[in-house]
């Protein structure tokens, strides 16, 4: 149980894929224009990450190390196709707003990095938990980013107006330039906070 909490803490806080490891930037920047999209993307990645980690961990003794990357990619692509088709069927609205970034989960560095660094060396259960915690870390980070962008960029949270009519949204924040800017400022804040903590210790 304690290892579960430890892994969860690592994925969400100390080794967060976005704020600390800085991988998986493309979907993070592109789909964080609204909280709805951000959460959708985060959960899709979490699902693929858990499934691929589990399967790769189960197959880790059978996959020859020379062709392992290709094998991982095929496994990941299979799960991504499942997600893509299910979203198209059951959540067509979300599917069209995430657009091409759903198939692009295949080349999301987080998934391949976890397969290579964790699932290929550990048993199925820890790998599944690792997938869950890294996926949640990604979801938390992308949710924070998209909340900031949606709140200031269109004055709403999850589509609900917050500031009332008098607020003029800073449109730049939901444009590409705002994505880079908000993420840069958030990581700076994160580094500032963790550094202060280290110094006070």
């Amino acid at each position, binding site marked *: 149980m304690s290892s579960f909490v430890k892994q969860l803490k690592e994925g969400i806080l100390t080794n967060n894929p976005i704020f600390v490891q*800085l*991988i*998986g*930037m*493309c979907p993070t*920047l*592109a789909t964080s224009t609204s909280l709805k999209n951000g959460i959708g993307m985060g959960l899709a990645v979490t699902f693929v990450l858990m499934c691929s980690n589990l399967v790769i961990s189960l197959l880790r003794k059978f996959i020859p190390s020379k062709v392992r*990357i*290709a094998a991982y*990619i*095929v496994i990941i*692509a*299979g799960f*991504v*196709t499942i997600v*893509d*088709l299910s979203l198209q069927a059951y959540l067509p609205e979300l599917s069209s707003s995430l657009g*091409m970034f759903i*198939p*692009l989960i*295949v*080349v*999301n*560095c987080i998934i*391949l990095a976890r397969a290579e660094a964790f699932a290929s060396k550990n048993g199925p259960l820890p790998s599944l938990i690792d997938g869950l915690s890294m996926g949640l870390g990604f979801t938390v980070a992308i949710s924070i980013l998209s909340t900031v962008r949606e709140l200031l960029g269109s004055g709403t949270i999850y589509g609900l107006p917050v500031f009332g009519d008098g607020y003029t949204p800073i449109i*730049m924040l939901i*444009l*590409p*330039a*705002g*994505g*880079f*800017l908000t*993420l*840069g*400022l958030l*990581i*700076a*804040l994160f*580094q*500032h906070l963790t*550094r202060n903590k280290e110094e006070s210790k």
Partner: protein
Amino acid sequence: MSGLTYYFSLALSAILIENFIFVKFLGCCPFLGVSKKIDTATGMGIAVIFVMTVASAVTNLVNTYILGTTYAYMRTVVFILIIASLVQFIEMFLMKSMPALYESLGIYLPLITTNCAVLGVANLNVTNGLDFIGSVICGSSAGGGFTLAIVLFASVREKLEYADYPKCFEGFPIALVSASLLAIAFMGFQGLSIF
């Protein structure tokens, strides 16, 4: 639009108006990862142009003649396999026949498999319904747009080494903030839109 104008506007749109990095957010990982020096950024850029052009051509042919609409659900799996094997093949080919080029591009090639710009352009070509020539032009000019962006960004980052900024901005944050300024500059090209 007639043939040549159409292809020209396609190329211009892929390089400037719909720049892969600053407008579409494709290929951000290598963009942030390999942009510390102009030399390496140029090397990466040229390798990406090369792979994207070949990948666009091959995926277009495979999609038209093999997958069609019947096997459309296999697209993601097939495309990523094509790209991965293509990268491997190009690497072996360069090693044998052009060792000098391999020396300079070698280390970037394996990274390109996980560059989402390559899979992105292959998917976009299909969704936009481009023909073979259109796909090749779109692939090479999107690669050109990537190179333009990464080289510009690398030259900014080289200067950043000497800049004085708050300590918590060290590393990625300051790079992201400067990328944002470049993205604002690229927003100016939206006005060029001819489509």
